[in-house]
């Protein structure tokens, strides 16, 4: 079995590569990479996986596709990593998508919610992790159709793949009536100083639903502006920005009352988890291995959870650490309960199902926290089911 091991795997080490935006416009996401690094430190301190330590090499690509190519090729061809794990961003991962598949290097659990990461036929070496943005959009659409009388939706979205996927999900979910129901859409660029003008237009559209597809800073701005304009729609806040600590508390709790969002991970800012074992394990980990980390930042939970998924795959692989087997194990996760996933949500993959997480639960903001309600929902876009 030894001979078939992937490059970067020795008797006492597994090399894993990663690209993250530690600089540039998306640097906030760097917290994910840092958390994962800390998580592997913990794994190593506890003896590693089957006696092998993880050598996690996480490099900066500044969210720039050309640099992702450079850094990824360096990781694969110079550092000889066994696999690339949790590369962040859609354009960045797209830039190395073909390369890694051609080289047969696992591109595992990419940190983006585009739908294109789950195509086992065309790209057998690439797999996503988080539920995709489109299915989240579908979830909101269904909620609207069931709960809002005579809905008129106004959308604010970031003008990139992420924003457009969310919008597309909403369109799919609304079905034939999408064009009627969506009465206004406004986009913004990450470089825009404010999104006020857009919100003014949306408020003027006469919509009674505000679909807020924005990243944290803009989400806080938008929530504030909606309030300032005395506009009172049903607000749907995308999960990218549902962190209590970094968004709702910043905008002001009073402005967030009644907002709806979807969750698949536990929000560290939600006081109701204080006694949860799962939460405590994460919290202890943070204190011990990532004391500088911001515990209100949902990315740290994300990093912790996905890192554990990776560990699970490697554990399942046992001593057969060939790239093929690593990929095969990643594609055979059965009801894996990754830490910090909401109760009832599990990870399932198969040879034809490269979408690890496909479930959601809706929550409504009341007082100072999100209150989960209803059933665990499946998004159903792009998934095998």
């Amino acid at each position, binding site marked *: 079995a030894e001979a078939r091991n992937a490059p970067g795997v020795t008797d006492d080490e597994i090399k894993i590569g990663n690209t993250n935006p530690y600089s540039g416009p998306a640097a906030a996401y760097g917290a994910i990479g840092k958390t994962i690094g800390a998580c592997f430190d913990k794994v190593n301190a506890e003896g590693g996986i089957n006696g092998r330590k993880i050598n996690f090499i996480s490099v900066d690509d500044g969210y720039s596709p050309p640099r992702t190519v450079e850094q990824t090729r360096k990781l694969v061809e110079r550092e000889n990593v066994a696999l690339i794990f949790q590369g962040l961003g859609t354009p960045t991962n797209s830039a190395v998508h073909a390369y890694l598949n051609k080289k047969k290097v696992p591109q595992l659990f990419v940190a983006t919610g585009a739908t294109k990461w789950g195509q086992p036929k065309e790209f057998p070496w690439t797999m996503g992790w988080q539920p995709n943005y489109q299915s989240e959009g579908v979830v909101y659409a269904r909620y609207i159709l069931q709960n809002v009388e005579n809905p008129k939706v106004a959308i604010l979205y970031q003008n990139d793949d992420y924003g457009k996927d969310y919008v597309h999900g909403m369109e799919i979910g609304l079905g034939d009536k999408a064009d009627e129901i969506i009465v206004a859409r406004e986009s913004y660029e990450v470089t825009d100083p404010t999104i006020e003008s857009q919100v003014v237009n949306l408020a003027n559209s006469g919509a009674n639903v505000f679909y807020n597809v924005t990243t944290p800073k803009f989400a*806080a701005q938008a929530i504030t502006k909606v309030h300032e304009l005395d506009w009172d729609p049903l607000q749907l806040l995308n999960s990218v920005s549902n962190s209590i600590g970094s968004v709702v508390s910043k905008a002001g709790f009073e402005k967030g009352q009644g907002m709806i969002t979807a969750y698949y991970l536990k929000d560290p800012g939600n006081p109701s988890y204080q006694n949860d074992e799962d939460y405590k394990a994460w919290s202890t980990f943070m204190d011990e291995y990532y004391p500088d980390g911001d515990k209100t930042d949902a990315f740290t939970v994300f990093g912790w959870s996905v890192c554990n998924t990776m560990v699970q795959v490697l554990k399942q692989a046992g001593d057969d650490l060939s790239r093929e087997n690593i990929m095969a194990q990643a594609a055979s996760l059965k009801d894996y309960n990754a830490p910090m996933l909401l109760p009832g949500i599990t990870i399932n993959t198969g040879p034809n199902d490269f979408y690890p997480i496909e479930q959601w639960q809706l929550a409504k903001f009341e007082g100072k926290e999100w209150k989960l309600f209803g059933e665990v929902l499946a998004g159903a876009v792009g998934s095998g089911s």
Partner: protein
Amino acid sequence: MDLFIEQTLSGLASGAIYACLALAVVMIYQAIDHFNFAQGEMAMFSTYIAWWLIAVAGLPFVAAFFACIVISLVGGFMVERIVFAPIADAPVLSHIIVFIALFSIFNSMAGFLFDFTPKKFPTPFGHEQLIEGVPLSAHRAGMVGVTLIMLGVIYAFFRYTPVGLAMRAAAAAPDSARLVGINVRFMLSLGWGLAAAIGAVAGMLIAPITFLTPDMMLGTLLYGFAGAVVGGLTSPFGAVVGGFLVGVLENWMGTFVVGSQLKLTVALVLIIVVLLFKPAGLFGRVVVKRV
């Protein structure tokens, strides 16, 4: 309320943001005869200092506000002394590279020291509507007020103090300036200090609206720069008018003409068209070159 009026008001409100920063741009232009690309990042960093003074050190807002101005003044002064003095004779393009270096350093240091989660920055004015039914918050109004006060101070500085004149002279003709006894180095440092201080005020006014993040000035700087250039780089008054103009123009474009995807592009094209007809900006002094 009429959408047009609302967008205009909202444009004026964003315009106030740009105007603030445009003033800092004019200040540095007068002092170094160039534009400092790190200006926005320095302002952002100053704002983090103020935030730290308030949120961590527990200072009251007013104390933190003024402390931040002083710290920024000294900081800007020192940056010039430490970083630029050794390369005083290098060509201007090399200086631009150093601006870029400062940009990277301030940006990444802010993320490193204060992380990336948006911070809430307080305002002494409050966010309530100033007049019931008019979508203009007290903070916006306060911001316009402070901007106008700054404008007055800067205008007076350049118009009525010998230092203001000497600063311009030092920037434009350093050798001659030395010959009339102007300490050119000091003027440069002072210009940096003042620009940093103005930037700090701008940052502290902007942050309550945009929230404080390390990248909050990335886009804002372009607008501030555009405001200053449209108004005329030599005129503080022009900078303020330019800032408001950019804010309003952008909103009109986005709402009534091309939609939000291309509003920035079109607004900038318009600005450039303005410049084609008034190459020194609306209020800038036309410098005639003759032989």
